[in-house]
């Protein structure tokens, strides 16, 4: 076994309040191997996004990382200085946000939003960037000639795919996906997950996949962690989480997905 790509060790994060603090993430540890899809599931407000933000060190006050380490290929992200951090972001960890529909800047053309990444990290000029943009858009089935359009001219699903294309533009080692499909209807959702899976096979990046939809998660992930009120209460392979849940809370979660549990959930092959 090689060393895991991403190691989160004893991560604890508080939101500082006026008089008391709120512990959003409490002593959480997990690893993500190279090329693996690791899922984080749990009800709304249990701290999933807080973990996702910490991996790229995107937190702003009043969030405070109390303790813990976040290692990517053995290097602690929390020790990077501002210049190293800028260089690290997106090149090593790219991110699809919870409302990816709103994560494109409404006043910049799509090609600009590719260009600023490519110029910052790879010093590309406009012509090179345009070529790379076209290539990435083709990967997600967006006609490259639409790169001159603004985000509002695309549908929700297309915007989602554009964000994914921007994510892959630098060949990152891991992509963090925070509920990338919640705002989409089921068909589009499935389509996008399938596409991500194909791309993952081609490029070999890892995925940290976050959702509260357990049914979706077991179809898509290799391993899954279940979170409850800031704590990681169970961690296992997708099959075991589905077939042999250990923790009471996991079982309760399954009970709340009556329609999914039982029949079509395990058609993992189709994805």
């Amino acid at each position: 076994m090689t060393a895991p790509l991403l190691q989160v060790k004893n991560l604890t994060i508080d939101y500082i309040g006026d008089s008391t603090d709120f512990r959003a993430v409490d002593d959480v540890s997990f690893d993500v191997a190279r090329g693996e899809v690791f899922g984080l599931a749990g009800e709304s407000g249990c701290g999933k996004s807080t973990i996702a933000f910490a991996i790229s060190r995107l937190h702003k006050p009043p969030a405070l990382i109390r303790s813990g380490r976040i290692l990517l290929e053995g290097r602690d992200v929390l020790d990077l200085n501002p210049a190293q951090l800028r260089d690290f972001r997106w090149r090593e960890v790219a991110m699809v946000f919870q409302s990816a529909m709103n994560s494109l800047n409404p006043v910049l053309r799509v090609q600009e939003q590719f260009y600023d990444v490519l110029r910052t990290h790879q010093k590309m000029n406009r012509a090179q960037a345009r070529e790379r943009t076209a290539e990435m858009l083709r990967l997600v089935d967006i006609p490259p000639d639409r790169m001159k359009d603004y985000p509002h001219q695309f549908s929700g699903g297309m915007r989602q795919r554009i964000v994914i294309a921007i994510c892959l533009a630098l060949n990152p080692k891991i992509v963090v996906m925070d509920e990338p499909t919640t705002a989409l209807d089921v068909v589009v959702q499935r389509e996008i997950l399938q596409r991500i899976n194909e791309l993952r096979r081609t490029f070999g990046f890892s995925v940290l996949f976050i959702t509260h939809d357990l049914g979706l998660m077991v179809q898509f992930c290799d391993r899954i962690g279940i979170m409850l009120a800031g704590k990681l209460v169970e961690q296992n392979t997708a099959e075991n989480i589905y077939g042999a849940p250990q923790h009471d809370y996991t079982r309760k979660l399954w009970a709340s997905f009556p329609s999914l549990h039982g029949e079509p959930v395990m058609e993992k092959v189709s994805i």
Partner: protein
Amino acid sequence: MQPLIAGLVRNRKALVGMIILLIIVLIALAAPLLTEYDPAARVGRPHQPPSAEHWLGTTRIGQDVFARLIYGARTSLAVGFGAGLLITVLGTALGIIAGYRGGKTDEAISFFTNMVLVVPNLPLLLVLASFIGQASPLVIAVILGCTSWAWGARVTRAETLSVKQKDFVKSAEMMGEPRWRIMTFEIFPNLISIVGINFIGSVIFAIITEATLEFLGLGDPKTVSWGMMLYNAQKASALSVGAWWDILTPCFALALLGIGLSLLNFAVDEIANPRLRTGNSMSRWSALIRSGEGRL
């Protein structure tokens, strides 16, 4: 309502603003106790600098500046709060009706509102006041109230549109409550911070505008008010003859009242919009970072 008041008590800006306002109100109320002079009467020689006898000097025609200052506060406050109330009542009523009723009513009110917004306010007031001629503070307050409600109506309408979608409004409708009851008892209480901001803003606007109109010579010369003090001082060339006390006194009074009210306004804004608040949590956060108990 409750959180608004609780928030105001805890907000530092609100506290300072409150204190300033309270002091001015008390001084205005206690004016006869604080000075023996009649603010309108000639009580000394013209343009005397501040002295033990005349704390803030005298005007060109020998009136006591301090007496005029504290009696004038009554006028400014009365016009400000009177006109402010009128502006707020009109703006809130029109905004809620337009937002809640929708349809043709909304179109008509919104068109009218937008129209009033693009006709320049101060020149319009000047024209009105010049036709009325020597407007008394009461007249000024009334025309201010009738011409300045448009901004309030616009923001109240926008807010009403979002409150209207809430469940409690829907359920009140289902129970067949009459529309006026829904507007007064379901919607209005939820607009209280917008109404508060509108009210304080309107008071500031009314005080400033009254002073401006009077300064421009549209007031009634018999009025004792800060605006008339400015007008008389300017007419007497107080600055060029070096009688700074004559003109700077109402200046600082107006500035102080303006600042006090603005502080209150900003405070209400912060309470209404939690994102604007910089509470205690920020200083606790910084302290924790400095002591190395966490990082980002």
